């Protein structure tokens, strides 16, 4: 079955075609980063307005690139949440209506399930069960994954997501938006020994995170030493080291507590090279290994939605004839297809 996937939950319009036999056939992506950059963050109304302009042109390009006609599509999957409700509604409205007009089944996909399963798009996918670290601008979660739809949250951020902390720190350092890549670039030039930031919540048991204190620490440090180029790089380095270290400590703990060996990293922050390197060591230390999607599929994309949708459609899951989108949608409420 060839499945169309549509992702519009935030500031990327992503579409893809995934075939249950042949794998990923094509994927296209439009990033709105330029739209939101001058506002210093995602403006939900502008995101929705852009999705509704871009989705169909991207769909035409996708079908062209795959070299297939619309009649080849056997099902439609779209992100129904969690995310920006107005943005989600664009993809859900177009996706559900396309499926109705084509006379094919539709399925609503959970955005974070898409991220969790993104490593399955790679040549050496992990086997179940595994521990997944979902780490993006909106989420920081450790999840035990026993199969599709069988998720248990082991821990999550009590305040800012890790990616959000990167964005906020970049903003106060004047590094621009999006903050993740900007801070990582600065950190490369930074002195690892000049500042040491705390590793929040690592000195107590449990797998929850807290990142809001780190940006305050960065702000205080900045006010103390001034915003010269060298200090900006050193603060970026200390901040990134603290985030990476904190995530690594909790990942190691999660592997220990579950007795699992496979670690999956997904979400935009998963593209951070320092994090990847560190977590590879952690997984190796647990006698296993770490799996990630290619960097392009760490951030929001249509391929992961097409994949998750394909698995659920193949198992017989069907969406009723209604367009549903949810800003909030607890992952643990999902069921195996």
């Amino acid at each position, binding site marked *: 079955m060839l499945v169309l996937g549509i992702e519009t939950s935030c500031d990327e319009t992503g579409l893809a075609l995934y075939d249950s036999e042949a794998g990923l056939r094509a994927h296209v992506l439009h990033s709105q980063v330029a739209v939101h950059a*001058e*506002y*210093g963050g995602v*403006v939900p*109304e*502008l995101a*929705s*307005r852009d999705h*509704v*302009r871009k*989705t*169909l*042109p991207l*769909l*035409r390009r996708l079908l062209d690139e795959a070299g297939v006609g*619309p009649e080849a599509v056997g099902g439609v999957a779209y992100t129904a949440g969690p995310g920006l*409700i*107005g943005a989600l*509604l*664009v*993809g*859900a*409205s*177009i*996706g*559900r*209506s*396309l*499926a*109705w*007009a*084509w*006379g094919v089944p539709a399925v609503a996909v959970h955005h974070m399930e898409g991220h969790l399963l993104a490593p399955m798009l790679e040549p050496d996918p992990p086997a179940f069960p595994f521990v997944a670290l979902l780490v993006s601008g909106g989420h920081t979660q450790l999840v035990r994954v026993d199969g599709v739809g069988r998720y248990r949250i082991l821990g999550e951020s009590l305040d800012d997501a890790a990616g959000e902390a990167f964005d906020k720190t970049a903003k106060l350092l004047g590094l621009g938006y999006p903050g993740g890549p900007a801070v990582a670039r600065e950190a490369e030039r930074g002195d690892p020994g000049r500042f040491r930031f705390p590793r929040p919540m690592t000195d107590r048991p449990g797998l929850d995170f807290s990142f809001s204190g780190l940006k305050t620490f960065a702000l205080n440090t900045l006010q103390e030493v001034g915003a010269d180029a060298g200090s900006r790089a050193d603060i970026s380095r200390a901040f990134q080291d603290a985030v990476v270290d904190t995530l690594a400590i909790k990942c190691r703990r999660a592997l220990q507590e579950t007795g699992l060996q496979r670690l999956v990293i997904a979400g935009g922050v998963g593209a951070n090279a320092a994090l990847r390197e560190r977590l590879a060591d952690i997984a190796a230390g647990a006698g296993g290994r770490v799996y990630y999607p290619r960097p392009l599929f760490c951030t929001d994309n249509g391929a992961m939605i097409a994949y998750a949708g394909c698995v659920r459609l193949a198992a017989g899951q069907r969406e009723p*004839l*209604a*367009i*549903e*989108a949810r800003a909030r949608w607890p992952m643990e409420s999902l069921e195996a297809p």
Partner: protein
Amino acid sequence: MKLLAIETATEACSAALFIDGEVEERFQVAPRDHARLILAMADDLLLDAGIAVRDLDGLAFGRGPGSFTGVRIATGVAQGIAFGADLPVVPVSTLATLAQGALMDLGAPRVAVALDARMGEVYWGAYMTRGDGIMVMAEEERVCAPEAVPSLKDGVWLGVGSGWGPYGDILHHCCRERLDGMVPDRYPAARDVAWLGVHGLRNGRAVAPERALPVYLRDNVAKKPGERNR
């Protein structure tokens, strides 16, 4: 001719099916429930008529102005159906739809439409018929303060739409003796989108699915960091 029309720009959600001069409609006032209802309404209409989506000659949708999210639901649904069934689409103004409804139901040949746009403003448009049963634009649509609506020309007008509720006195004052009455409590309905859609389709005003886009009128929806304190 067979045309499907949808309208979700206000608290009302409706779909209508035009077949050779007859219109069937499903209509419900259901704030925040449009997304859940609209496709089922369309499906129900086609089922009753015994036709398939591919039997349609075209599609029409309420392109706004109105609730941003509501307008985008109609747009998304229209884009999806039109792409999926390879149909031409006629974008229809929400203000024209209200005017068309006033013509068909109340016999008003000249209608001044004001839709409450929040933030102390109205979406404003003036529509009149040339006697062929179809409302056409007499005054460019705009979003503005009720005090700033342009004066009405030629003849006597009926004020229609939710803006005539909270701003009835102000708008009345602006329109002076040209106003014949106010009917604030009317919603745009898909049956009137259908009439305007059929007219548009016959007159070459249909577009390809990806050109079926919303008209918000209000476009300054976000401020850049430097603009906040102005």
